[in-house]
């Protein structure tokens, strides 16, 4: 669909001035209801963001409700969080009774179940969001309840970590593909064929950054010690202060560099995954560079700092805009040939994911 002259298939038409009344009333109502309104607030936010997002010639529609999200959260609380809390208490009390083997076993079961459920939650929240997203009256969804994905999530991540973390990119790519291959929109199934090729260089950079950082700090300390020894018995207080300063700068720059390297990896990962996705006759593209992600993050931090925290309520808006601004689609599509999804309609929101306090993307 995208031709040369600046036309883009995805376009975000929102204005933060229009979103501000929604964000502020959401904040007010969330505070006075001790947080319960946030489910309705989230639905309002999405209704706005979706309705200002044009794809080809029609805007998206968010049909999910706050009540759905609320019900999903309550169900997750009763069926998942409460049992896990009891399990946690059981493990602790067993360890207190010196029953280390049994306590360890319960703790192991608990971690396994949590990992499994995080996977299920990620799959189901994507499924929920697609099933409540309409475009030209057509919605997406999935018929897979997500349990199989939960197992994949568990074992692929485990393998990724056990191989000294070197297989984590493989786990991320393969899970992305598995998740999206289970989804559909209208009668079309998503096909995701992302590859690990091309990610390893950046990943190895993340992988090695801590070692390089430690070596750097070690060298800095050695140099400090040497200069101190050479300068002889000076003021005993000032070298200590200088050391703390150097250590502080070292740690800070290490975090900055490490964060930058991780971002570079993730930016490439995200581009590569989206670029390998198709939906029927459509193919997708994502063009945010590391610099774009960095600008987004610095903008977030700056906004929150300058507004003393109030800016937090605009982050959803900023992230959605970022996503849509950088998303592109190509291909010829015959509107009359797209028919309604036959997948089951999901009626409870992403409570499980919410319960684990995880973000949307």
């Amino acid at each position, binding site marked *: 669909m995208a031709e040369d002259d600046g036309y883009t298939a995805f376009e975000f038409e929102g204005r933060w001035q229009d979103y501000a009344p929604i964000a502020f009333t959401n904040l007010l109502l969330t505070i006075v209801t001790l947080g319960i309104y946030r489910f309705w607030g989230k639905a309002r936010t999405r209704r706005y963001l979706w309705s*200002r997002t044009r794809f080809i010639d029609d805007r998206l529609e968010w*049909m999910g409700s706050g009540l759905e999200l609320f019900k999903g959260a309550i169900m997750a609380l009763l069926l998942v969080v409460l049992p896990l809390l009891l399990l*946690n*208490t059981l493990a602790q*009390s067993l360890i207190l009774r010196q029953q280390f083997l049994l306590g360890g076993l319960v703790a192991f079961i608990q971690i396994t179940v949590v990992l499994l459920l995080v996977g299920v939650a990620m799959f189901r929240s994507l499924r929920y969001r697609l099933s409540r997203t309409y475009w030209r*009256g*057509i919605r997406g969804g999935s018929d897979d309840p997500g349990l199989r994905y939960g197992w994949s999530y568990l074992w692929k991540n485990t393998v990724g970590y056990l191989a000294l973390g070197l297989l984590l990119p493989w786990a991320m790519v393969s899970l992305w593909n598995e998740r999206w291959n289970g989804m559909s929109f209208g009668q079309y199934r998503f096909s995701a064929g992302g590859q690990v090729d091309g990610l390893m260089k950046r990943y190895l950079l993340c992988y090695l950054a801590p070692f390089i950082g430690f070596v750097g700090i070690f060298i800095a300390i050695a140099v400090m010690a040497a200069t101190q020894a050479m300068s002889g018995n000076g003021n005993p207080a000032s070298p200590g202060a200088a050391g703390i300063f150097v250590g502080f700068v070292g740690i800070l720059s290490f975090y900055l560099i490490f964060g930058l390297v991780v971002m570079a990896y993730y930016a490439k990962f995200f581009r590569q995954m989206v670029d390998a996705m198709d939906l029927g006759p459509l193919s997708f593209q994502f063009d945010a560079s590391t610099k774009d992600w960095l600008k987004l993050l610095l903008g977030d931090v700056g906004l929150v700092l300058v507004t003393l925290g109030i800016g937090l309520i605009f982050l959803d808006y900023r992230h959605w805009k970022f996503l849509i601004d950088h998303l592109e689609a190509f291909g010829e599509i015959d*509107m009359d040939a797209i028919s309604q999804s036959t997948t089951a309609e999901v009626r409870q929101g992403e409570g499980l994911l919410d319960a*684990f306090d995880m973000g949307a993307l």
Partner: protein
Amino acid sequence: MSAGGDGGDEQAVPAILFDGRSARRHEIAIGRDAGDLLIVHETGAIERIALAALERQGSGPWGDRLVRPDQPGWRLDIPGGLPTALAAALPAPHRYGRWIDRMGLGRAAVAFAAISAALVGVVLTAPQWLGPLVPLPVERRIGEALVGDLASATCHTPAGDAALAKLMASVDLPGQAPVRAQVLKVGMINAAALPGNRVVLFSGLFDEMKDPDAVAGVVAHELGHARKRHVMQALLRELGLSVVLAGTSGAVPVQLAKVTGLRYSREAEGEADAFARDRLSAAAISPAATGAFFAKAAKEEPAGPWMVMLASHPASADRAKAFGGAVDRSRRYRPALSPAEWQALSRMCDEDKRVRPLLDF
């Protein structure tokens, strides 16, 4: 938009329809006939939909919008806006949520704030009156479930047990359900009241305290927590707060209260102190040693292992003054334990070769 034609209402209005079956866009005209919406299709066919089956949604760049809750995906956009007669016949679109729309934002916010404040008030005060209503056997069972009986870490020698029993009997209220006291092999300077009428002294206490009178003061303080049912109150408060706060953060606090880390309110600490002074006086044990203990703690605040015990307690200097001031110069006090008994109690954990130290967390 050349809809209009014949066979419809006298003032047909152009509109765009997606029927939720395919992605096809239908350019139609609408009108109203009594309780029905009339749709003039491109083919000229006329469809009637009862107004009661329609729901109005928020307006935007697309104009006004009608949907059918019974037919997901069905969507009617009226770019020029709903004709006034039709708009009047349909309920207004939802904005904040059903209840809030009905009340108005301002009134709803005030009402919710009042309910929330009342709820927080109840949750904060409920433990005080609810705690004493929980039967002791239930509290005992909760204690068992949370920490077990700690038998393997409890120090025993015949003479030490006898000294501990004597100490307890001399400062406890007469004629009440027994409180079980244990000395645990833990290197911390601490003592705690546990759920179910239990008091534990950590063996580290005897390395620091050289006077049985001071230990009597500490035991009497923890007894005060047990007798005044503070333990159940603290448990309930911890539980209540975590439930209420669950709404705000999304993630339920993963860790239930660590039992020995339970926080009592300042009032409860003051009450336990008053109880201790009362019982010391009744047992003719001088509060001077306890006062000296707190005076020493006051000097070492805020650093040092004292913090473990004193974090939520009133300032040590104030407590030292209160206990010191309770000394009656005209009175003849007796030592809490004889030198032999004190020797047996304070060395119990060194002499018991069977006991295993409790794991430090």
